[in-house]
């Protein structure tokens, strides 16, 4: 194996990587679940989802597509994923636990 062979293997590796990436690159990476604790500031029910504003260090917004019985002042723990919407980070809640 000479230097030219190593270069050839490297270039083939790059090309295979590019081709695989072209066909498989997802729009977004599936993000790691997060768990966050806070106190509810407000609950706003929309037609298909509910927006919960809650306070940790900062005020964050969580979106849930399930029916929820939480209300202002409740201490909650939210499990979900982070999502960027209108240049703000919000949490898509999979599960909300009242503490």
């Amino acid at each position, binding site marked *: *194996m*000479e*230097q030219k*062979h*190593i*270069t050839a*293997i*490297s*270039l*083939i*590796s*790059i090309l*295979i*990587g*590019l081709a*695989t*990436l*072209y066909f*498989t*690159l*997802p729009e*977004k*990476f*599936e*993000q*790691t*679940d997060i768990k966050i604790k806070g106190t509810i500031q407000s609950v706003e029910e929309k037609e298909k989802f509910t927006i919960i504003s809650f306070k940790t260090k900062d005020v964050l917004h969580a979106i849930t597509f399930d029916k929820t019985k939480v209300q202002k002042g409740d201490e909650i723990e939210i499990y979900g994923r982070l999502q*960027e919407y209108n240049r703000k980070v919000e949490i898509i809640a999979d599960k909300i636990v009242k503490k």
Partner: protein
Amino acid sequence: MILEILTIISGSIFGVITGIAPGMHINLLAILILNMNFDSKITALLILSIGIAQNFSEAIQTTIFNTPTPETALMPAQQMLKEGKGYCAIQKFVIGALFGTLIAIMISPILYFATKMIYDTLKEFTKLLLAAIIAILILKEKTAQKKIWAFIVAILAGIFGIIVLNSATKQPLFLMLSSLFGTSNLLNSLINRIKIPEQKITEEKNSFTKTTIASLGGVFSLLITSILPGIGGTQAAMLPSKILRIKNESYTALIGSIGTADFIISIITLATIHKARNGAVAIISTIIKPTTSNIITLFSAGLIIAGIATITTIILSKKIIQITNKIDYQKLPAIMMILLFIIGLIFSGINGPAIMITGTAIGILTLTKGLHRSNLMTCLIIPIILN
């Protein structure tokens, strides 16, 4: 797609450059990148690119600048440098790193099923395996006197490791390994006036079969060691080198394969046993899930990074060797020693030079008694056993 490719290319080149600089470890850079609030995909690809690429150019750091990392500490680079074969050492390491990436990705479906099985079988025996490794290292010395000295060095390095790793010092691994393996070697060169000849940049032929066997050995030993808590790349290198009788130049390829395959196997273990020994992969896991789709993307990026890093590191190593050939090589050990002590002082204050002086003394003892430097790896092994 363009943005992702640009991220991979720039990350790979940046990784090769920072891989040469002592102390610029990916774990440190990954935390900085994490705080830059890029999109999760860009963050993950950037950390992966820099991390994998650094593993290629660490060969230059270890060979020319004498500052090894946990993966390259036992690389026979210094011996090859003394024979004027520094470029050859770097080239073999880089080929091993390339093959390690390609093999680990190719056999990833097998690794996926094997990791969980091996983890369940071996997790109870970690400490016993580590104790056996220390015993083998000591008994490997030829004479009874050397065995006694190896025992003393192993204990000293172990105590040194316990103190340094449990201290509040920043960058403890860098200080410990640079002194045990780096500054001690540099001081030894100065004391004994070891002449480093001009390094030849010759295109040596590499055996495809030997490199493949060495890289395969690296990947499979890493498969066992990476799922056991605390066993690192260097310990991983010891197993196949003994079993497959891999020596000298092939051993350099084996060590190269371990650094890069560690990334691929850590991504797999993250998916199967929810553990990643590799620090950069552990940081990536805090932002993205190890789903099949994400893993395929990371592996595709891995193929591109390996290709770019191979070509870039080889070109860069030629340039660096041409420069170092022009300066007086006898002055280089003194320059490097001063530089390492300054870096230690910047990173860790007065603790830095204090740790480095102690490590240098233990390293010098190993060299003057003619012992294998692998005995010094107890600095990492004993703290794990006692943990």
